[in-house]
C-alpha cells in the first residue's frame, strides 16, 4: 500500500500550525521513520494518518483512494501506541483477537478461525504459551510484542508505530528494534514509525523523514541524511544524537 500525504495542515487551539502543508509519499512495503524533537509535529501527523485527529486542510490518499475523512475504524491501519494501550482486563489472546471479534456480520471469522489466527500471531511474536496471561503479568518487552501482534492481527493495510520503544530499558530496546523490523519484513506491511531517537530511526527504517516545527526538513535514506544533510537543523539533530 502506498500512502500519499498531500499538503496536510493542522493547528490546535487556534495557535500556530502544528503541521504546515506537509507532503510525503510512503512507498509500498517501505519502513519509514518520522524523526524529530518533541513538538515537531510527528505524533500529530501519525494521529492524522490513523484517523484519530482531523486535518484542517490537505488530503490523504491510500493507493489513490481519498481517505482524508474516513473514520479511524474503517481505515484498517494497525497502530502500536506509546503506552501499548493493551486492554488490561483481557488475556493476551483476547487482546490479539479483538480486531477480528469486532468485525461485522460475514466479515467476522468464526471462533475457530479466530483462535487459529491468534495462535499464528503468538507464534510470530515467539510467545506461543502466553495467550492466557493478562497484560499486567508480562514484561515491558512482551507487552510491546503483544501490541504488535494485536495490530497485525487485522492484516492492516498500514502499520503505525508511535514511539514503541520509549517505555523500555536500553538493553531490551536494542534487542526489540531488530525484531520489529523482522516482523514488518515477514508480514510485508508498509510501516511508519514515530521516534525522537536518531539511532533507532537509522537502524530500523528504509527512509527517514526529519521533522521540525511542523514541516519536513528532509526525506532520505539514513546514508543520504548522514552524508548530505539539507539544512543546519538536520545536521545538528543527526549529529547531536
Amino acid at each position, binding site marked *: 500500500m502506498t500512502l500519499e500525504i498531500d499538503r496536510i495542515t493542522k493547528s*490546535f*487551539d*487556534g495557535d500556530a500550525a502544528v503541521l504546515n502543508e506537509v507532503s510525503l509519499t510512503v512507498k509500498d512495503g517501505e519502513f519509514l521513520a518520522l524523526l524529530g524533537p518533541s513538538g515537531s509535529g510527528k505524533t500529530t501527523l501519525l494521529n492524522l494518518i490513523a*484517523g*484519530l*485527529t*482531523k486535518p484542517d486542510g490537505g488530503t490523504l490518499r491510500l493507493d489513490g483512494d481519498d481517505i482524508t475523512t474516513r473514520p*479511524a475504524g474503517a481505515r484498517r491501519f494497525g497502530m502500536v501506541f506509546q503506552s501499548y494501550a493493551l486492554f488490561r482486563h483481557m488475556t493476551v489472546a483476547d487482546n490479539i483477537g479483538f480486531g477480528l471479534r469486532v468485525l461485522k456480520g460475514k466479515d467476522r471469522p468464526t471462533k475457530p478461525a479466530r483462535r487459529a489466527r491468534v495462535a499464528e500471531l503468538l507464534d510470530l511474536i515467539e510467545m506461543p504459551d502466553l495467550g492466557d496471561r493478562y497484560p499486567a503479568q508480562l514484561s515491558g518487552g512482551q507487552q510491546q510484542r503483544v501490541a504488535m501482534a494485536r495490530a497485525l492481527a487485522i492484516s492492516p493495510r498500514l502499520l503505525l508505530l508511535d514511539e514503541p520503544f520509549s517505555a523500555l530499558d536500553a538493553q531490551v530496546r536494542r534487542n526489540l528494534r531488530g525484531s520489529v523490523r523482522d516482523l514488518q519484513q515477514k508480514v510485508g506491511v508498509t510501516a511508519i514509525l514515530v521516534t525522537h531517537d536518531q539511532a533507532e530511526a537509522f537502524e530500523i527504517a528504509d527512509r527517514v523523514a526529519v521533522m521540525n516545527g511542523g514541516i519536513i526538513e528532509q526525506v532520505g535514506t539514513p546514508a543520504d541524511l548522514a552524508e548530505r544533510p539539507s539544512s543546519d537543523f538536520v545536521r545538528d539533530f543527526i549529529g547531536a544524537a
Partner: protein
Amino acid sequence: MPILQTPMDALRRRRRSPLPGLGLTLGVTVTFVTLIILLPLSGLAWQFAQLGWSDYLFVMSDPRTLASLRVTITAALLATVVNGIFGLLLAWVLVRYRFPGRAALDALVDLPFALPTSVAGIALVAVYAQDGWIGSLIEPLGLKIAYTWWGIVIAMTFTSVPFAVRAIQPLIEELDRREEDAATTLGASRWQTFRSITLPQLSPGILTGTGLSFVRSLGEFGAVIFIAGNLPYETEIASLLIVIRLDEFDYPAASAIAGTMLALSLIVLVVINILQTRLYRKLEGAA
C-alpha cells in the same frame, strides 16, 4: 481586541476526541439535567421572582417564620458543634488506633447515611420518649429530650455525623507523624503538639465536615419531625413550615422560606469553599 479573543479561543479549544458517542451521551445528559435539575430549580427562581420585596418581607417577618428559622438554625449549630468534636474523635480513633471492633465502628459511622430518615425519626423517638430507654432514664431527673428543642438537636446530630467523620478521616491519614514526633522531641506536651501541630493541619477537614454537617442539619426533615413535637414558635423547624404553607396552597410563602433556606445553605457552602482555599494556601505556604 483581547475581549473578543477569549470566547473565540474557548470555542477553538474544543479539541475533538475521535471517540464516537458525543452526540448521544451529551444529548441524554443535557435532556436529563434540564428536566430533572434545571427546570425544577428555575421553578423556585420563577416563583421567587414573582414575589415582590414587600411580599417577601411580609412572609419572612411573620413571627412564626422567624421562630422556625431560629429553632432550625440554633439546633443545627449545636448539632454541628457536637459533630465537630465527636466527628474528630471518631475519625482520630478510627485512623490512629487498632482495636477489636474497629471495622464494625467504621461501618457503623455510615449507618445514618444508609438509614431512611423516617426510620431514623421513629427510632430516635423510641429511645428518647418517656417510655424509651434513655427517655425513661432521665425523666426522674426532670429532663426531657423528645418533643423539645433538644430532640431536634439529637435528630440533626444523628443524620449528619457521617459528614464530619468522613471529611476529617482522610486528613488524619495523610498527617505526617514525624512533625508530631519533632514537636515532642522539642519538649512540647501532647496537648501542645495537638493544638499547635495537628489541629491546624486538620482544619480544612474540620471546616468541610462541620460545614456539610450544618447544611445537612438545616435541611433535615424526616428524622426531625417525629421527635420535634412540632409546636409552632417552639419546636417547629423551617422545613416543616414550608410543608404546612404548601398544604395551605400558600405557594408564595413556601417559596419565600424555601428560597431563604436554600440561599443560606449555598452561602455556607461558598464560604467553606473560600475559607478552604485560603487554609490550604496558608498550609502550603507554611510548609
